[in-house]
C-alpha cells in the first residue's frame, strides 16, 4: 500500500489559507511563457482572420470546396469542438452527482473548456455558410415577412441545442464560481477588486446562500447531463437524418456522444498537465487524480471503439452497396491513411493508459492525450468527407483536398480557444478553492474516522472529542 500513501488525491494536511494562497497566486503577474503562448494564439487567429476575409470576399470556392464536397473541414472541426465541450459536463455534472470528489480540483478548468470550445464550435457553422451575412435567418425571430426557419432541419436543431448548451454551461460555470469569486474579492485590490465585487454578487457565505447554492448546483448538474447528451445526438443527426451512405447510421448519436466524451477527456489530460506544470499545482492536480482521469478516458475509449465496430458491422450486414463502398473506400481508398490513423490514435494508443507506469508518466500522458485528440479530429473528418466523395451517384465520385483557407481557419480555431483559455486562467481561479477546502475537510474527517471509530456513530452536531477538535481547520488555519 506504499503507493496509495504516495498517490493521494489530495493531501488532507493542506491548510486552507495555503489553498487560497496557491490558487490566487495563479492569477497574478504572468510569466514570460504566458505572453509567448498568448502571442502564438493571436498569430494563429490572425492567419485565420485573413483566410476568412478572403473566403468571405471571393466565395466558398476559396476553401476548395466543390461539387460534391459541399462540406469539409469546417463541419468536421465544428463537431470536434462540440465534442470537446462534453468533458466539462462529464467532470462537473456527472461526477458531481456521483459524488466523486476527486473531480473537485480539476473540474473548474474543464468547465471553462466546455464553454470556450462551444464558443469556438459556434463559429464554424457561420464560417461555412455561403452567405455568412444572412446567418441570423436560422434563428426564429419575428419578421414582417412572416417566415421562420425550417424547424425540420437538423441544422436548426443545432442552433437551438448549441445556444441552449452554451447558455446553460456558461451559467453553470459562473454559478459554481461565485464563492471563489468572493474569495478573490476579499483578496484583490484595484480593478480586480471592483470586478470581483461585481461578479461575486455580494456573496458572504451564509447558510442560506450555501443551502440554495448547493441545490441550484445540483439541479443544474442534473439538467446539464441530458442536455449534453441531446446536444451531441442532435449534432449527429445532421448526418444520421440524411439519406447518404455512411451518414444515415442509426448508431450515430451514442457514437458521437462517446467520441465527444473521449476527446473531451483527452483534452482535459492535456490541460491538466499543462496547468500542473505551469502553475506548480502538484498539490492539487495530483498524479492520483490524473490516474483516475486516465482510467475514465480508457473506459470511454473502449466504448468508442466498440461503437465503431458496431457501425462497421451494421453497414456490412446492411447490404446497401453504397454504404459498403463508402466503408471500403475508408479502408482502402484515398482516405485510408487518415482512417487508419484515426483507428490507431483512437483505439490503439489508449491502451497506453492501461499501464499504471505510463499513467503516472506525465510527458507520456501529454503525448498520448494529444494523439487521442488528433484521432478524434480525424474521426470527424472521416465521417464528413468520404461520404461526400463517394455517395450514390457515380458521376459525382471525386476526391478533393482542403485548401490553405480551410487549414488556416481550423488552426485559427485552436488559437481562439487557447486565447480564451489563457485569459480565463489569469482572470478566474481555474481550480475551485472552496471545493478543495471541502475536499480537504472531507478527507480529514475520513482520516479522523479511521482514527476514532467513535466518531463514526457520532454525528458532527455533537461536541467533538478533543482529539478531533485540534484537527479541525481553524487551529491550523489561523
Amino acid at each position: 500500500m506504499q503507493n496509495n500513501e504516495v498517490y493521494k488525491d489530495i493531501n488532507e494536511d493542506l491548510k486552507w489559507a495555503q489553498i487560497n494562497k496557491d490558487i490566487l497566486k495563479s492569477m497574478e503577474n504572468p510569466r514570460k511563457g504566458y505572453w509567448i503562448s498568448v502571442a502564438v494564439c493571436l498569430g494563429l487567429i490572425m492567419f485565420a482572420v485573413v483566410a476568412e476575409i478572403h473566403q468571405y470576399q471571393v466565395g466558398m470556392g476559396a476553401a476548395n470546396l466543390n461539387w460534391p464536397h459541399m462540406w469539409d473541414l469546417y463541419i468536421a472541426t465544428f463537431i470536434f469542438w462540440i465534442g470537446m465541450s462534453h468533458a466539462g459536463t462529464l467532470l462537473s455534472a456527472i461526477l458531481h452527482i456521483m459524488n466523486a470528489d476527486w473531480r473537485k480540483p480539476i473540474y473548474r478548468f474543464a468547465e471553462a473548456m466546455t464553454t470556450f470550445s462551444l464558443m469556438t464550435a459556434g463559429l464554424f457553422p457561420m464560417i461555412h455558410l455561403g452567405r455568412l451575412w444572412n446567418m441570423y435567418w436560422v434563428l426564429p425571430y419575428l419578421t414582417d415577412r412572416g417566415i421562420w426557419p425550417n424547424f425540420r432541419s437538423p441544422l436548426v436543431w443545432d442552433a437551438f441545442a448549441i445556444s441552449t448548451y452554451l447558455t446553460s454551461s456558461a451559467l453553470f460555470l459562473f454559478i459554481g464560481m461565485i464563492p471563489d469569486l468572493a474569495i478573490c474579492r476579499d483578496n484583490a485590490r484595484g480593478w480586480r477588486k471592483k470586478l470581483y465585487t461585481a461578479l461575486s454578487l455580494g456573496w458572504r457565505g451564509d447558510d442560506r446562500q450555501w443551502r440554495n447554492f448547493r441545490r441550484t448546483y445540483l439541479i443544474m448538474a442534473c439538467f446539464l447531463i441530458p442536455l449534453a447528451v441531446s446536444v451531441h445526438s442532435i449534432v449527429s443527426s445532421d448526418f444520421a437524418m440524411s439519406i447518404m451512405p455512411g451518414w444515415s447510421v442509426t448508431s450515430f448519436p451514442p457514437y458521437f456522444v462517446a467520441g465527444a466524451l473521449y476527446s473531451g477527456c483527452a483534452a482535459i489530460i492535456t490541460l491538466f498537465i499543462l496547468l500542473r506544470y505551469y502553475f506548480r499545482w502538484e498539490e492539487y492536480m495530483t498524479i492520483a487524480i490524473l490516474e483516475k482521469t486516465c482510467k475514465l478516458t480508457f473506459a470511454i475509449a473502449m466504448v468508442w471503439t466498440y461503437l465503431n465496430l458496431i457501425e462497421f458491422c451494421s453497414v456490412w450486414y446492411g447490404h446497401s452497396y453504397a454504404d459498403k463502398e463508402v466503408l471500403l473506400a475508408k479502408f482502402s481508398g484515398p482516405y485510408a491513411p487518415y482512417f487508419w490513423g484515426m483507428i490507431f490514435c483512437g483505439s490503439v494508443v489508449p491502451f497506453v493508459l492501461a499501464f499504471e507506469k505510463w499513467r503516472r508518466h506525465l510527458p507520456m500522458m501529454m503525448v498520448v492525450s494529444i494523439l487521442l485528440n488528433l484521432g478524434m479530429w480525424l474521426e470527424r473528418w472521416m465521417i464528413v468527407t468520404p461520404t461526400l466523395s463517394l455517395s450514390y451517384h457515380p458521376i459525382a465520385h471525386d476526391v478533393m483536398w482542403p485548401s490553405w483557407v480551410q487549414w488556416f481557419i481550423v488552426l485559427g480555431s485552436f488559437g481562439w480557444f487557447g486565447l480564451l483559455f489563457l485569459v480565463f486562467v489569469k482572470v478566474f481561479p481555474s481550480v475551485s478553492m472552496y471545493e478543495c477546502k471541502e475536499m480537504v475537510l472531507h478527507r480529514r474527517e475520513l482520516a479522523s474516522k479511521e482514527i476514532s471509530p467513535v466518531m463514526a456513530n457520532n454525528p458532527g452536531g455533537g461536541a467533538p472529542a478533543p482529539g478531533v477538535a485540534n484537527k479541525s481547520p481553524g487551529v491550523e488555519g489561523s
Partner: protein
Amino acid sequence: MKKCRILGLFGNFDDAFAAIADFKNHKVDGITVDDVTFLSPIEHPDIDDVLGPRPSVIPKVTLCGAAFGITFGFLFLASAQSNFLIQPQGGKAIVPLPSNIVLTYEMMILFSVIFTVIAFLITTRLFRKRKSLYSEKITLDQVAIEFEVDEKYIDQIKGVFKDNHVVEVREEVQS
C-alpha cells in the same frame, strides 16, 4: 428598543457548532436556533443537522421553469409552423411532432436552467448592499455566527460566544 447586529468569528466549525448547540438549548431565552445566521468558507456537510431543517423553494421554481419551457416551447414552434406563409412541405405534417419534440426538449432545459438561476439569485438575497458586519476571514478559514436581535440580548449572546472560544466579536447598533 434598538435592533442590533452581532457577529462572532470562530476558529473552527466545532466551536461554532457548540455555540449553536447552546442557543439550541435556550442558553439565551428569547433566542432560538432559527435566529442564527451561519457564515462559512465552505458548506459543512453536517450543517443541516446543526441548524435544523431550513426549506428552499428552488426545486419548485425549476419545476415551473420546466413546465413553462415545455408549453411555451411547443406552442411557439407550433404557432410559427402553422403561420408559415407558404407551406414548404407539400402535404407533410404542418406541426411535425418528431422535430418539435426535440426542440421542445431543448426549450425545457433552457428555461429550467434560467428559472433555477433566477430563483437562486433571488432566494440567496444576492445583489444586496453588503452588510457591514463581515469579515474577510470568512472566505479564508474562519466561520461566523450572526444575529440580528434586540439590544437586550447582546450581552448574553456574547457570553455564549466567549464560552465557545470565540476568536473575535463584532457588533453594530442600527440607528
